[in-house]
């Protein structure tokens, strides 16, 4: 198994919310990718957006601006 890294995680209520996130981040060239939600997090949808912690500020602002369907935001070692 690979070494754990600190990640900024965004979870969503629905898969549709995760898809909207992925599409927007790709368009805007924001970092990250969809991963399965780690077990220590409880989330509506089974997908989470995982990005480097340093991108938290810019992504967080975008989540509010774009009214993304966010369930939670975390920083965890995965």
């Amino acid at each position: 198994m690979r070494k754990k890294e600190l990640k900024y995680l965004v979870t969503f209520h629905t898969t549709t919310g995760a898809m909207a996130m992925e599409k927007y981040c790709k368009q805007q060239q924001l970092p990250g990718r969809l991963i399965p939600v780690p077990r220590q997090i409880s989330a509506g949808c089974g997908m989470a957006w995982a990005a480097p912690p340093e991108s938290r500020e810019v992504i967080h602002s975008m989540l509010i601006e774009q009214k993304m369907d966010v369930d939670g935001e975390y920083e965890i070692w995965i």
Partner: protein
Amino acid sequence: MIYLDNAATTLRKPPEVIQAVVNAMNQMGNSARGTHDEALAASRIIYETRELLSDLFGCPRPDHVIFTSNSTEALNTAIYGMISQGDHVISTDMEHNSVLRPLYRLEREREVSLSFVPADEGGTICYEEFERQITPRTRAIVCTHGSNLTGNLVDLVRVGEIAKKHKLLFIVDASQTAGVFPIDMEKMHIDVLCFTGHKSLFGPQGTGGMCVRPGLDIVPLKVGGSGVRTYEKIHPKELPVGLEAGTLNGHGIAGLGAGVRFIKDTGMEMIRRHEEKLARVFYEEVCQIPGIQVYGDFQADCRAPIVALNLKDYDSSEVSDELAQGYSIATRPGAHCAPRMHQALGTVEQGAVRFSFSWFNTIEEVHTAIRAMKELSQ
């Protein structure tokens, strides 16, 4: 073979639709069931199709586009999920059984009372009747955008205004019009728009859905697998998953998405004009053939590309079979799952032969069908 049964299902699909289904079957895993490439491929295509449909119908949010297997399932979900014990519902004589039977079932099971805006012998309705039928218990208006039998359209802006004025739910069956006629949920004050994929949206059978106004509470018809909140006993409420228990028809939805994209690329107005022209040319010729009676309102500016007719007192099944066997022309005979409409037209016994046109029909095919009807009438 000349296929003129497009109101039942469009046979000729854009090649992109077929290719999209083939690609999906080669590449797609299960949407919302993981984040490996194959699962994501499914989730992405399904999401894109939600976006395309929300844009097409003026649905405020892509996540409020719910996929079902057809209009019938969507209408059952909307009607069964929102109409309560003792409510009153207004519908019309123009409806298909996919509207009527869920309503009749609620009449038996939830003591729901029903009123129907009557259609005249030309199959048209009087809009003032909607308001006349309203009672203090009226909860909803459920109506079609276009009759599957006559092709007559309903002015949704007008009915939507009435629904809004009286704070009624407005549930619309767009089976015959989606993809050909402009529909704007906001402008028409539609709460739930039900559509099927396999007709004028050019998708595969087994696709369809409903666009839901945000804020509505619809009790799902089915609950079960959702891919999320596994340990909760209650199915999640969030849309779209709240109304989409079980694995979606991702392969079909990929085809539906390609169908909607084809409509957008070709232009809805272009498609409509072509289909209207075919139906109009056919009507203008066959209505002059002695012994042929055509049903529906052909004075209307706008109508679905459907021409239903009978030849003398021949059984409509016999005429349709002659067309199929003698001319390789596919039409639909008999009763068209629209019992009240047949009663209004006086065609309960005879049924009707329905010719319905699509973008992929040609004017030459129409002229062949006209010649066939002329021959059969002699």
